[in-house]
């Protein structure tokens, strides 16, 4: 039964991938003029000689004079072979540019996810057990501010505080000497020294909402008869809490992890831009602004695919955790 469910869910995601890649390609194509024109403009701006033959060759290669669907097929078959086209701004194949940035984005999202869980779950439990006390109200208020404050605004405030009160520059992920250095242990330590602030900033709003959900879930469970039974039998409060109600209240979190992860990656775009992190976000933004369309398209496609995989993982986890789903 479960295997059948997973099979059908996998089959279903194939058309999703194609729809997502179509959308990504349509976004590339949407701005007026084809990208060779903007490429020629970029070249002319930097003072290079615009070689008509080369432009013609580019048009030929990407089939720009052919209909939309043919162009899409050319692009997507290139992507299948790992060829994402070339970035006009960087004069490099897109595939050389994106992977390190995507890697850092994934690392940042993973860190944020762990931070969020480590902070939100204990606070949510505490807030539910101490319902309507001063600390509950304080946590609730902080939580609401966390939800109402856009991440990028918090990042700006943090940068302001760091510069004005500590004289420190908190942007970026590496110190100057490691920026172009190859990966080493020292560089990794340097990364850890810088990454905590973006993690805390990105984590605040999801921490706030997770805390509220955990609190609400646990409050629903705490009134159930089995809790009273356990208490009547003399189980200690802490053991009682951890053994049954918390486990049940955790179910929704396990199943949303696949969904939360890609959300974090694409949600970090604006904050990463403010803090000038060397992750996918700022490069995507720059690519969009300068109409570097193959680069932008590659990022959008990858982010879409990550989201779809995330949904898939969530659904399968949910089917594991909650058997009722499989029979629907």
């Amino acid at each position, binding site marked *: 039964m479960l295997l059948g469910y997973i099979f059908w869910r996998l089959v279903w995601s194939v058309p999703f991938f194609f729809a997502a890649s179509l959308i990504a390609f349509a976004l590339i194509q949407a701005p007026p003029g084809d990208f060779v024109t903007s490429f020629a403009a970029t070249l002319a701006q930097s003072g290079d000689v615009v070689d008509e033959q080369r432009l013609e060759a580019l048009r030929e290669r990407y089939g720009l004079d052919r209909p939309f669907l043919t162009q899409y097929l050319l692009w997507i078959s290139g992507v299948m072979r790992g060829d994402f086209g070339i970035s006009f701004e960087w004069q490099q194949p897109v595939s050389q540019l994106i992977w390190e940035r995507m890697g850092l984005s994934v690392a940042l999202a993973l860190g944020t996810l762990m931070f969020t869980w480590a902070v939100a779950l204990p606070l949510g439990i505490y807030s539910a057990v101490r319902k309507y006390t001063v600390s509950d109200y304080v946590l609730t208020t902080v939580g*609401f501010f966390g939800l109402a404050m856009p991440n990028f*605004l918090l990042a700006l405030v943090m940068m302001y505080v760091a510069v004005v009160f500590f004289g420190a520059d908190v942007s970026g992920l590496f110190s100057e000497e490691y920026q172009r250095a190859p990966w080493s242990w020292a560089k990794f330590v340097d990364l850890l020294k810088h990454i905590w602030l973006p993690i805390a900033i990105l984590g605040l709003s999801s921490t706030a909402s997770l805390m*509220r*959900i955990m609190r*609400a879930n646990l409050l629903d469970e705490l009134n159930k008869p089995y809790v009273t039974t356990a208490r009547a039998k003399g189980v200690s409060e802490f053991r009682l809490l951890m053994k049954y109600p918390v486990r049940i209240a955790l179910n929704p979190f396990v199943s949303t992890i696949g969904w939360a992860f890609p959300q974090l990656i694409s949600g970090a775009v604006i904050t990463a831009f403010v803090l000038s992190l060397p992750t996918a976000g700022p490069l995507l933004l720059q690519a969009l602004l300068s109409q570097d369309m193959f680069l932008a398209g590659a990022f959008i496609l990858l982010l879409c695919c990550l989201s779809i995989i995330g949904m898939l993982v969530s659904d399968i986890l949910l089917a594991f955790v909650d058997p009722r789903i499989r029979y629907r």
Partner: protein
Amino acid sequence: MTAPDTNTALPEAATEIPDVEHSSQWKLMWWAFRRHRVAVIGGVIVLTLYFVAAFAEFLAPFAPQSTSSQNVYHPPQMPRLFYDTTYDGSGFGLHVRAFSRERDPFTLQTTYVPDPDRVIFISFFAKGTPYRLWGLIPMERRLFTASNPGDRFYLFGADRLGRDMYSRVIFGTRVSMTIGLVGVALALILGVTLGGISGYLGGVTDAVIQRFVELVLALPTIPIWLGLSAALPQDWSPLTRYFAITAILSLVGWTELARVVRGRFLALRNEDFVIAARLDGATRRRVILRHMAPSMASHIIASVTLAIPLMIIAETSLSFLGLGLQPPMVSWGVLLREAQNVQSISQAPWLFIPGAAVVLGVLSLNFLGDGIRDAADPYSEVQTS
């Protein structure tokens, strides 16, 4: 995301409600809503913000675009009542202290120091620069402005062109708060139509629409927004761009509403009163509009209220990045663009004030929405905690 709740319902209030059996549903909801004190406060703030949005021209002391090269990054001034100066004498009246500009001889940096000799008087309903209310009615009087027409004062400071931040935040309120409303209205049309069809017809139609909703939900919102807004032609007029941006925001935002509507339809479809109406020979249109829609209205209002803040944040983010609205249009996000680099915010921290406006607007809309959602089902004995 499940939006959190406020938990401010007073437990003993249930006994105070008079005549529960004979009151209409809306009356019951109003009573349930009133018990949420935080939600009521949120509602009052939201109404105030929309009032400010409606009468922005009248409430702003200066025109939002009027620059003043003398007052670049002028610091905020506090309104005061008693004054005692050498030049303007002493007495009682609403005023702010004047600042004079000084240039550091070494760093050449401009600093503003309070000028003990002069004050700038503020008067209510005084004549300022002429304007047209809603672009139609020519007017001159403003709620308050400088008594002496040549004077300028800066309650929230000035930006890099010496424009008054207070007036700009007021005008930003108009654009930011309405972009949420217009965007939600578009999303509502899409969501209610598709969700309604999906929930009422069921079967294959439902399955197709649901797969479509899932696809839209699966797409990462921020990159799609960025891509779509980057594709907008640069030479569009500000107003066209405003509607294009709202359309982009609602293209992504309608799915949540569609799900709420479908869920309610599925729940209501087999209720006794709906079956009775159908057996009575009512047309499908009448069953939906006359019998089902009213009992869904409260849930829809709640979802709409909770969707507006998301739209506001989205618009702010897009405009902040330079992909959303463009100057001369003024929104909170456009204003926050001024705060993009560390140099300007360390020199002029008051550039953060539009951010405070965003937090205030979003927070009060969230509280209001939570209150409405909890009150939406007045017949339920236990409020969800």
